[in-house]
């Protein structure tokens, strides 16, 4: 960003885990103290590097779950056959050191300030909600009143990440869930995979020149992005970030 002094390092640095918090039975948020953190933008990610005592190394990318100005945090979904996620969600404790690199990314970012008025359409597939949550937190912190709709596709209600926070629904933010596998008794909301009809009902009208951010597994992103373009959203107004099977970008 022109005019901004680049503080901090764009290479690997050692951070200390300051807190861990379970979001769901399989999802945990880790907060870090990062000595040379240069600050970040909502939507960016960081890379984590682990080193075993035999020298074996593993690297993974995770979206930053916190807003600019808040302590750096990531939210990790545990995959049963994973190599890194079980370690991060079960073994890591406050005080542990972890190498990380970031912030990374200049495309899937939202910098909206207090004077921004472009309506936002956020579409999350599973753990794709993480960078979108950073955007929502940033929106609150800067006092933005842009209208936001978050369509969050998830298997069931217990799988919803950040549920208490999303339920609080700050002014101007609408959260719409679609529970694709299991619904609680009496559920009257969406209960299927996102499809063109659902998008048609949820998306801001094209005439309002909205900006859309789609994040989740590739299958999810491909379908949703195509549906938005079919609805008339210019492709350059639909930002996409695809996560792999590991739940990371």
């Amino acid at each position, binding site marked *: 960003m022109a005019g901004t002094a680049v503080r901090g390092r764009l290479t690997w640095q050692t951070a200390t885990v300051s807190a861990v918090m379970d979001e769901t039975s399989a999802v945990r948020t880790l907060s870090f103290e990062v000595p040379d953190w240069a600050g970040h933008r909502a939507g960016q990610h960081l890379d984590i590097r682990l080193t*075993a005592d035999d020298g074996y190394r593993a690297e993974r990318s995770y979206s930053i779950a916190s807003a600019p100005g808040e302590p750096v945090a990531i939210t990790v979904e545990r995959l049963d056959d994973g190599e890194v996620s079980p370690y991060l969600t079960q*073994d890591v404790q406050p005080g542990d050191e972890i190498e990380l690199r970031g912030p990374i990314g200049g495309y899937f970012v939202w910098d909206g300030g207090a004077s921004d008025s472009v309506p936002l359409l956020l579409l999350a597939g599973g753990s794709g909600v993480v960078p979108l949550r950073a955007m929502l937190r940033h929106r609150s912190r800067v006092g933005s009143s842009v209208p936001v709709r978050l369509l969050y596709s998830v298997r069931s209600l217990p799988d919803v990440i950040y549920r208490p926070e999303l339920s609080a629904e700050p002014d101007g933010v609408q959260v719409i869930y679609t529970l694709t596998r299991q619904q609680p008794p009496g559920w009257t909301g969406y209960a299927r995979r996102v499809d063109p009809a659902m998008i048609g009902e949820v998306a801001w009208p094209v005439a309002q020149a909205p900006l859309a951010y789609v994040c989740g597994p590739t299958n999810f992103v491909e379908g949703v992005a195509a549906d938005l373009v079919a609805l008339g959203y210019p492709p350059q107004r639909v930002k996409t970030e695809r996560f792999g099977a590991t739940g990371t970008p």
Partner: protein
Amino acid sequence: MSPISRGFHRRHEEAEPAGRVPPGQYVTHDFPVLSAGPTPHTPLANWTFSIEGGSSPVSWTWSEFQALPTETVTVDIHCVTRWSKLDTSWTGVSLDVLLDAVSYDDPYVLAFCDGGYTTNLPVADLKGGKAWVAYNYDGKPLAPEHGGPARLLVPHLYFWKSAKWVRGLRLRQTDVPGFWEMYGYHMYGDPWREQRYAGD
């Protein structure tokens, strides 16, 4: 100096050396899919396998290929990314049968595939019951993500040489690097000598 991540260890322990598993490998019961590009979907009506560069080019259509003598073999496969899978069962046509249809004196081939992937091999490593063009895996037609309708199967070399979606071989006087070999993977790729990268 990277800090050691307390309690972190690799997921797969290496297999005991000396035995069926080459050095540095672990045994998996999965069959990981590793692709450098989109899965091709060539209709069988359009599929051919060709050998070019001999005295005259030779080519088989799918039905002609199916009419060739086939074998079912059980082999171990070893991927350069360190997984090994034991006792895998394949059905296909031996390269001995295919190369017998051509008159040639070239010592090398470049295998070429739908999607543009290539890999290089010595002809000697395709002959003598060591290589097949396989179209069934585990008794069923080879799935597209695993290289179907047909892939090269050369189990004594690292599995990147067992080119998915193979469509033919180009006979050559000289050994030229294929796709991964161009970027530093070993020209030959013997898992028993751990020839993963050029210079190994």
